[in-house]
């Protein structure tokens, strides 16, 4: 996030796009609700009637994948009515002229047609956003990024920030809300094929030289391959060995069959995790790791705040912390490290990464979490980015982007659009919430949310078992008839991988720049399942066992789990 979570409570205008905040980031949604209570306007841009719309001043119910025409039209209105922040544009941005020309064709009428809304909704949103600026915050999440045009979606939001000068000010910003607890930290640490720690580019010779000196080792010059490319290369036989730490790829990836196939294709797979996950079951070697509650270190949250994680108990059996395992691996590869503890590792990381420069475990213990960039001991950290200049050091660049429809759209054979997301009481692949007692009662199994009118057309009732299939796979779920879904759009999460691998059906398209998978749109067909009288879990399992997809637990020995 460019700004801070708490700042949201004090803003005058919130634009929330593609974020089911009450479910995916409940505690951030509290700040949004508080802002509304304090008199802020809240505009929710989402195809589904999500819970947050209850607090919204306006719910703009655009069609899936039409974010760009919507935001371009908002820019169009701002420019036509001369509501932009000309000083900000002059002093801090580039590419304005071209952008202004570009959005001319996106009149409210033109975009309203594409988005399936009225021109007034666009015009009002534009006026309110501009009136509140700079105290106008934009928040978005996977509903924006998990599209084949995800990075363009993000740019179209960024354009609005530049246009009205809502960047580099408190209570504003363009704020991605991070999905998993330490996505931020993993990126900060340099787990990116192009970036060394602190987002320093590996292909820049000066940077590389600095790291070679600090690490006293030669470094590979060429950027590495992303996960998506890596999976293709595995299938082609070019990747021989894979080392996976703490990630249930087989379930979390779109088009799960593809991920499983890729990992089965390599000669040697090592998985380091806390459970024998679907991915670990494919491994040649499984290394038992410590959970967060047994680990010493830090997590970086959505607002770039680095917070201490402390061990409360010892790991079970012979399990060891990820840090210990990796240090041992270094030694066995003939590259022993002087580092011993997590604290030593942090100190080294801070010494090579300027955004962490002023941070240490001691300081975080003393002062609590601190937001990067934090250059030195006296730097209190940064509540909002881009204050006097953009972090990149360059002016903000207006990106003229165009509407690109989702890679797969409904047709005669697959007439429904399926979108996926999160539910509050389940999390990602369910490896952890699946273990918590009582959660089965909250969301007992996967459900397909469908509009009441659509359900009536098909003669469906709440709880009916449905077969949902796409060009790639099939799952069985029970129907949840709800107005949250607009007509023609159905929704599922992916928290019950053992019985419903939602991602067997999702699209295999990727964003062409960031390679983020298009989880948010694919075409499916729906029919009533033949097993109506059965318990849904039994039926789901039956479908799985019927050979649509291999059941990984069949490969499992008793020996791996449950052994104390």
């Amino acid at each position: 996030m460019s700004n801070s979570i708490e700042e949201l409570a004090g803003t005058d205008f919130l634009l929330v796009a593609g974020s089911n905040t009450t479910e995916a980031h409940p505690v951030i949604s509290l700040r949004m609700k508080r802002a509304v209570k304090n008199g802020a306007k809240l505009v929710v841009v989402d195809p589904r009637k999500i819970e947050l719309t209850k607090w919204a001043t306006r719910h703009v119910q655009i069609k899936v994948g039409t974010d760009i025409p919507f935001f371009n039209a908002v820019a169009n209105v701002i420019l036509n009515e001369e509501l932009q922040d000309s000083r900000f544009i002059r002093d801090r941005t580039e590419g304005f002229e071209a952008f202004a020309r570009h959005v001319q064709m996106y009149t409210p009428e033109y975009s309203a047609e594409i988005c399936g809304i009225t021109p007034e909704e666009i015009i009002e949103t534009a006026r309110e956003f501009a009136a509140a600026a700079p105290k106008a915050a934009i928040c978005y999440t996977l509903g924006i990024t998990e599209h084949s045009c995800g990075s363009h979606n993000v740019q179209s939001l960024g354009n609005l920030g530049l246009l009205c000068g809502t960047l580099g000010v408190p209570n504003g910003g363009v704020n991605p809300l991070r999905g998993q607890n330490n996505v931020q930290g993993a990126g900060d640490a340099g787990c990116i094929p192009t970036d060394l720690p602190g987002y320093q580019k590996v292909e820049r010779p000066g940077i590389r030289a600095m790291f070679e000196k600090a690490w006293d080792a030669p470094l590979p010059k060429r950027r590495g391959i992303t996960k998506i490319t890596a999976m293709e290369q595995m299938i082609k036989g070019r990747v021989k060995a894979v080392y996976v730490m703490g990630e249930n790829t087989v379930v979390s990836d779109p088009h799960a069959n593809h991920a499983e196939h890729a990992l089965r294709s390599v000669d040697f797979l090592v998985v380091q995790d806390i459970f024998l996950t679907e991915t670990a079951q494919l491994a040649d070697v499984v290394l038992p790791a410590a959970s967060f509650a047994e680990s010493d270190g830090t997590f970086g949250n959505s607002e770039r705040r680095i917070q201490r994680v402390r061990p409360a108990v010892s790991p079970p059996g012979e399990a060891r912390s990820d840090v210990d395992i990796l240090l041992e691996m270094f030694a066995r590869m003939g590259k022993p490290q002087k580092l011993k503890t997590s604290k030593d590792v942090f100190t080294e990381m801070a010494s090579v990464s300027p955004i962490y420069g002023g941070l240490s475990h001691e300081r975080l213990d003393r002062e609590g979490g601190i937001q990067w960039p934090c250059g030195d001991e006296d730097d209190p950290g940064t509540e909002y980015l881009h204050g006097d200049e953009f972090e990149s050091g360059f002016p903000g660049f207006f990106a003229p982007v165009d509407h690109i429809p989702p890679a797969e759209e409904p047709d005669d054979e697959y007439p429904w659009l399926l979108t996926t997301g999160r539910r509050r009481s389940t999390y990602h692949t369910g490896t952890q919430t699946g273990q918590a007692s009582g959660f089965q009662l909250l969301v007992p199994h996967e459900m397909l949310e469908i509009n009441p009118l659509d359900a009536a057309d098909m003669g469906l009732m709440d709880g009916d078992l449905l077969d949902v299939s796409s060009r790639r796979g099939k799952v069985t779920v029970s129907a949840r008839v709800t107005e949250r879904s607009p007509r023609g759009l159905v929704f599922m999460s992916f928290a019950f991988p053992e019985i419903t691998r939602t991602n067997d059906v999702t699209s295999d398209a990727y964003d062409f720049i960031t390679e983020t998978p298009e989880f948010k749109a694919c075409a499916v067909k729906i029919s009533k399942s033949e097993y109506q009288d059965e318990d849904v879990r039994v039926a789901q399992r039956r479908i799985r066992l019927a050979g649509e997809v291999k059941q990984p637990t069949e490969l499992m020995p008793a020996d791996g789990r449950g052994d104390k």
Partner: protein
Amino acid sequence: MTTVSVNGRAQGTTKWLDLYVNSVAVRCEEGSRVLDAMDEAGFEVPTLCYDERVGAQGTCRMCLVEVEVNGRTEQVASCTAFAEEGMSVATHTEEIKDYRKTLLEMLLSEMSSPNANPYSNKVGPTEFDRAVEEYEARWDAFPRLRVRDKAVHDENPFIQRDYDYCIACYRCTNICNEWEQAAAITVDGRGQESSIFTFFGNELMDSPCTFCGQCINTCPTGALTDRKVVSQEISAEEVDRTQTICPYCGVGCGIELLTHEDEIIGAEPDFTAPSRGSLCVKGQFASWEFVRSEDRLRHPLVKQADGTFRKVTWDEALDLVSSKFKDAIATEGPDSIVCWASARVVTEANYLMQKFARVAIGTNNIDNCSRT
């Protein structure tokens, strides 16, 4: 200068007030409560109906103090009264201490037993217990009132309600309605009969309750407790706490893990973290059971020819991994190996993973699961 607005309150254009608390000079911002000034000066009084996140109600009267301003002396509830220039505050006069003690003894007379409180016994003293101890309030100072019916039939697996301990402070309904804005619970009835109910008297599972646990965590007496925690065989003397971060989403709420003999028994919010004590159902009720799951991996495993796993020593596992990696580097080059880090593990491990890929293997083939 810019004015940063947090909580709707303007900062940056601050006016300061000077006042005395028990003769200690303090300075606080205009608009501060007397309670804030007392806090600044380091004096504490019980505040049984106050939660800073939803503001003051002034109903429990426990925070009563004596203030003198412009020659006038009066007793005010420090949670509702505002600090004034030149004010002097006395927090612990004999009269006020007696008053607090009497209030506590009256509350005690409504509870059936001095030693059946599930939270006090299993987890540790509640806010109410600490006040009772500090003011030496006695259970038998007043005749026992008719004890409220404590049987609450609500089958939900998360929240236990023991109305016997309810002191009608309404913190729970306020936090639910004002902060979480779930509107799941409300106060019903009057006076001694008043109690906390779900709207329309439904069970919680059928109410709009999000099971965020905020009501449990603000409850000062243990009338509302985390059923998962208090149903365990544990004793408060042996409970430890560790401040850490919720393992689920990118909000990164602060939590405290409760442990008992090297085993996790529950989680509570860390009120000192920037999340200000907020949690959601996952942080409150799902952040620890998986840690002690029977299914946790306990040994390194190596797959055998028939597809089953065999338990091995760490030495055997790591030797196998390093020899396979070395072979791959020698025959196919370092770029034939790929390392994936994780958004679920600590940053330090991620740092080591990318360094391992780059230095020990010699490839930039390092990625993590998500780009969001």
